[in-house]
């Protein structure tokens, strides 16, 4: 399925893929991070492919280039390129502030695949899709940790992640979110494991190391840090009965170092290279007059995001309910750039399914079919709240203070927590007994397959038909 996503989506038509590929090319061809002033943003090879495929960073209208003649023209012009035409990019681009881990990972197939730019792009996508397998497996393990060794519940959670359309779409793209989703899922599993089984040195080092790798993938992963530190603190606290203070402290220090070494290495490297270690909110249209963060303004923005009701004062979302149009639709089926979405009817079916699932999960808590391990659920809740808060603060700064551009937040930014959706599915299934559960699971798996089919038809309709 990942192969189908990787091959069927036109070149550059996953969010910001043009910029991510430019980063990758700069790293793989010159072993230099992009963002150097005075250099073109894209290489000559990249610009030609972008222009003639008509699916590059500017392409928001329906359709792709259908002309065989244009493809032949690209082949002819591309054949005339020399290696230097791949190396003359590396200028500033919105992705250039990202840490390099994902792009280093993608450099492997880039170097091994060789061939023309589309060969390197598509082999890179396939390589990236490996993270979907990692994320799916980690969800299966996470569900096992939360619900015990109940295969039907583990299967339900893993299938939800493995078949979630936006996860499959993003994972099969050149996009660090692919790795990010998998690393967050791994971190949630390792964190749950520490809460359930107690703190051990290998477990704590692996857990914090994965969080560190997440930071080295995308700065968004700093949002995982508060939850991770809570797990660590809880583990050390529980250790007081069985271990000495010294050994507990040593264990905590080792775990913190496992995070600090990769994260710190990047911060030091970025400083040495005079580049930001995290994405910066620049001046935008506000320029030097960018106002300071205003808590009242931020609270008003958050209220309008979640309660855009008339009669509640100034409303910045007059025609949409962002909870649905941004979070829900964006997390389920907004492919490529914002215009390409699943048909409206499909969203309503999905919404109904999600509401039933959430109701079922709530019932599972009431009926105790899910263990009430509050530490575990607090861990998940802290991760969720911190990520959402970070996204809102960023949007407020980007849109309302810096006035850089229009809406920043997209539903896909919640995908690092997709495994929690898988847990909700499993919790809802746990309410059902024996055969009922298996029939419901069978129906869920069938529905996920159909959803994938509908996604491919939607893509075909938009780009090729």
């Amino acid at each position: 399925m990942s192969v189908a996503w990787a091959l069927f989506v036109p070149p550059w038509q996953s969010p910001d893929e043009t910029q991510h590929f430019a980063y990758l090319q700069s790293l793989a061809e010159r072993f230099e991070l992009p963002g150097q002033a005075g250099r073109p943003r894209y290489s000559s090879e990249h610009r030609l492919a972008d222009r003639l495929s008509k699916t590059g960073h500017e392409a928001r209208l329906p359709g792709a280039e259908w002309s065989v003649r244009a493809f032949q023209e690209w082949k002819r012009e591309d054949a005339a390129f020399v290696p230097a035409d791949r190396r003359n990019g590396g200028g500033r681009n919105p992705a250039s502030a990202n840490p390099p881990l994902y792009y280093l990972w993608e450099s492997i197939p880039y170097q091994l695949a060789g061939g023309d730019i589309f060969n390197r792009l598509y082999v890179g996508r396939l390589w990236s899709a490996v993270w979907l397998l990692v994320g799916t497996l980690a969800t299966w393990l996470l569900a096992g940790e939360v619900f015990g060794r109940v295969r039907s519940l583990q299967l339900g959670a893993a299938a939800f992640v493995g078949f979630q359309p936006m996860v499959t779409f993003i994972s099969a793209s050149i996009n660090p979110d692919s790795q990010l989703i998998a690393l967050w899922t791994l971190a949630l599993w390792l964190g749950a494991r520490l809460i359930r089984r107690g703190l051990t040195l290998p477990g704590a080092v692996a857990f914090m190391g994965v969080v560190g790798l997440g930071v080295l993938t995308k700065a968004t992963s700093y949002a995982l840090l508060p939850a991770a530190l809570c797990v660590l603190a809880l583990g050390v606290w529980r250790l007081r009965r069985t271990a000495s203070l010294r050994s507990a402290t040593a264990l905590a220090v080792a775990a913190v170092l496992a995070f600090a070494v990769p994260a710190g290495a990047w911060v030091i490297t970025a400083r040495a290279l005079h580049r930001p270690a995290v994405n910066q909110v620049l001046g935008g249209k506000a320029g030097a007059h960018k106002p300071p963060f205003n808590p009242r303004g931020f609270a008003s923005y958050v209220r309008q995001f979640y309660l855009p009701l008339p009669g509640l004062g100034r409303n910045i979302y007059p025609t949409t309910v962002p909870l649905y149009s941004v979070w829900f639709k964006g997390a389920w089926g907004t492919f490529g750039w914002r215009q390409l979405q699943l048909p409206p009817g499909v969203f309503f079916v999905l919404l109904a399914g999600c509401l039933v699932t959430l109701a079922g999960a709530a019932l599972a808590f009431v009926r105790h079919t899910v263990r009430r391990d509050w530490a575990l659920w607090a861990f998940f809740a802290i991760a969720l709240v911190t990520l959402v808060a970070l996204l809102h603060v960023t949007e407020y700064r980007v849109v309302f203070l810096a006035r850089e551009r229009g809406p920043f937040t997209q539903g896909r930014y919640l995908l690092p927590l997709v495994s929690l959706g898988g847990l909700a599915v499993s919790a809802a299934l746990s309410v059902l007994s024996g055969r009922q559960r298996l029939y419901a699971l069978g129906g869920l798996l069938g529905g996920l397959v159909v959803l994938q089919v509908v996604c491919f038809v939607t893509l075909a309709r938009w780009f090729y038909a």
Partner: protein
Amino acid sequence: MPRPAWIALVAVVAAGLVLTLAWMATDRRGFTQRLDTDTTVVIPAGREVCRRSVKPEEAGVNGLRFQIDTAGRPGPPLALVVFLRHSRRAIVARGRIRGGYRTGLAEGPIRGSATGARALSVCLHNLGRNAITIAPPAGRPSRRQVVATGGTGFREISLALVRKPNPTLLSLMPTALRRAELFRPGWVHTWAYWVLAVALLIAVPGLLARALAGAEREDAGGGA
């Protein structure tokens, strides 16, 4: 004896596929997208007028249609040009309306790919010796009249984006898969998509059914 759980999976897949096929069989891909204004634009002989910020809602635009007043004379030939954003250097489609038409709707095919940007510009060049008037569509009153002067000018001309004929999405799928072969690595061919489609429709449900049966067996053998 209870039915195995994979029957639920197969039933949902089958029902979903039937609904999807019904959607594809009834989804017609031809369309006419009207971009109406209340401005009347006079285009003297030799002049060109363009409309910017044209955003097709569907792929495959292959014709442009205008409401033209020829003042009783045979209409002059018109050149049609579509380019990305506002830059004439990025022409993506060209076409022509032959001369000799009368006052009313005049339509011409365009060849190329009217896509590849956030918006397009559409230009109409009067190649004849008589002026023409691009009017709002019938039934919509004109509130403003402008005359194209100088070289290329951007005006609010009324036009319609057209796609003909009107095939179903289902009938276009083989063509769509052929198109998806372009701008891909040399090893990606149309047949690969057919293989992947079969895998998605048969192999994936098959593997899921097997996983479901395995889960059923293991849970029955001592799970919760």
